[in-house]
């Protein structure tokens, strides 16, 4: 241990001093002999991953004098991104599907992803029926995973909550959140052992993980409706004004505009072309 500590200490000082004489972190770059003739090489593999994934976004600070504005800088993005939602540590769907999972339907994918930032996947993609259905929905904290009081009441701007809505189900008469620890552990174990599983075992595991997922998810009209909304907005802490906006003509009218011509595809996801057909007036 002593030897290890001594080595670490020596390396640290070496890096602070002598390493500068040898290291290639001088600001010199390999200059092309004839810059005009050299063609840029396509970036592939590890370098492409670095460029397209790791380097494509970073957090920078704008020093405005009266304020330090921390923003997420996306390459080629014009508008200032002044908010960063905390990662959802509880949701086991996103560990495979990512935080921006909606992709199939051009017209709806951005809206789906927008809702996914404050509604857990299970809320729309699992239809609880019979004894399982409780019509109870609560907010959970994205960082801790714990059930928390409604963040809406705190006056946060729409969609900026660091919390998501999760449904509750009834199992053997007891109320439990649908993302139970048992399900989280099962999915985590699958990801851990995925490489060593046989193809049959993989299929079995995927089937079990997706067992509850409904082929027909709840759509916009399930919540954005004057009467009988799936989500109990009031219990979730929304004010009357906000509820009126959700079910008002602006939102409902827009949903109709987006969905009326694509309805068959929406209700049967995966069937037919992924490209929406041209609108027919």
């Amino acid at each position, binding site marked *: 241990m002593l030897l290890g500590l001594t080595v670490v*200490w020596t390396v640290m*000082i070496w890096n602070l001093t002598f390493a500068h004489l040898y290291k290639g972190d001088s*600001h*010199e770059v*390999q200059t092309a002999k004839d810059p005009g003739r050299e063609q840029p090489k396509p970036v592939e593999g590890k370098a492409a991953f670095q460029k397209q994934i790791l380097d494509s976004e970073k957090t920078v600070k*704008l020093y405005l004098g009266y304020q330090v504005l921390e923003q997420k800088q996306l390459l080629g993005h014009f508008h200032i991104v002044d908010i960063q939602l905390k990662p959802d540590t509880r949701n086991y769907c996103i560990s495979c599907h990512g935080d921006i999972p909606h992709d199939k339907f051009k017209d709806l994918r951005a809206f789906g992803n927008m809702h996914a930032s404050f509604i857990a996947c299970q809320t729309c993609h699992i239809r609880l029926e019979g004894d399982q259905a409780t019509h109870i929905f609560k907010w959970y904290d994205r960082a801790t995973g714990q059930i928390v009081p409604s963040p809406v009441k705190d006056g946060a701007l729409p969609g900026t909550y660091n919390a998501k809505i999760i449904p509750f189900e009834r199992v053997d008469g007891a109320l439990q959140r649908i993302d139970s620890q048992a399900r989280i552990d099962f999915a985590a174990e699958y990801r851990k052992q995925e490489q060593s599983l046989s193809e049959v075992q993989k299929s079995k595991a995927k089937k079990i993980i997706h067992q509850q997922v409904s082929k027909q998810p709840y759509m916009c009209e399930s919540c954005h409706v004057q009467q009988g909304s799936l989500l109990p907005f009031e219990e979730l802490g929304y004010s009357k004004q906000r509820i009126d906006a959700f079910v008002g003509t602006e939102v409902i009218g827009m949903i109709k505009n987006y969905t009326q011509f694509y309805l068959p595809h929406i209700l049967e996801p995966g069937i037919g072309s992924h490209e929406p057909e041209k609108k027919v007036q």
Partner: protein
Amino acid sequence: MAMRVKNRTLKRLGAFAIWLALVLVAHSQAYASDVGNCLLCHKYPGLSRIDENGKYRLLYVSEETFNRSIHAKVQCEGCHTDIKKIPHDPAKKVDCLTQCHIIEPTSEQKFSHKGVEEFLEHSVHGRYDKNGNLKKFAEDLPTCKDCHDNPMFRPLSFFKRVRPGISDAALGRCRVCHSKDEFIYRFYNHVTTRLHTTRNPKNIAEVCARCHDNSELIARHGLSFKAVATYTETFHGKSAEYLSERVPDCLNCHVKKGQSPHQMLSYKDPQSSTYKDNKLAVCLTEECHPSAGAKLADYNPHPNFDRKQNPRQFYFTAFFILLTGGTLLPLMLVMFLDLLRTMFPHASLLRKK
């Protein structure tokens, strides 16, 4: 009787007109740019998608931040000109040179950034050479959004030099003649932001670093060092790192006085501020080193730690590295071992059990 009813109706209509006007004014202040109610959807930070090329498209617009930006008065449709209805089809790429609805007060014509394009084309960053031929690797050269995101107002206050930002005293003076607070704030912000750069030196260097510290681009364009990394090695760069506003950033030296950064020329161009014969004049400006001697022009503001390029800097720096390392390394090692002995007085690597 009929007259009384008519009067009452007129009063009601008048009151309604006043109420309507107040509502409209209030609405226009709160959502100055959002007459199309685009924020109904775009206010949500989660409104996003991954496009067909795997690129993250974030469609969120922060209303509060946008309203503090230079473009706050420009309506969404002013830039996103292809959006005529809601719901809309995927928006096309914004053309920054398009005419927007803002009227430029001196010409009384619709405002456009068209003039910038001409400046840029004649600059070192222009895509065509002097003969009108497309430069090699022209696709690497910057377009608007490579350097600019939506610039934020960065008002400057001279009031007692205590705090930057809005000076209440100055606003008080504006209110003597001008009654509309919205106008006063916007005008004040615009003018005081333009009295200096919209970014501080550190942020300006970061923008230039996107290309000028990119090894691939530097190599392809025959440049020999990382411009910003070397700048940060200097006193100027270090002060900028500590957020000093009083040190020269990239633009102070590379842009000719009285011109815009879009007119920047190559250091090989005799018209350039960084041309070998013009360098001294840049250093001798009143704000910088007005009484310096001619030798200051020899100063290398991009000291590359490279034996071939800058032997003097290299050996000088190497000497100090050797001095520091050669002194501190043994000293700290002794102190560290002494500390270990104090903590573990009986420890031994050689003792046999």
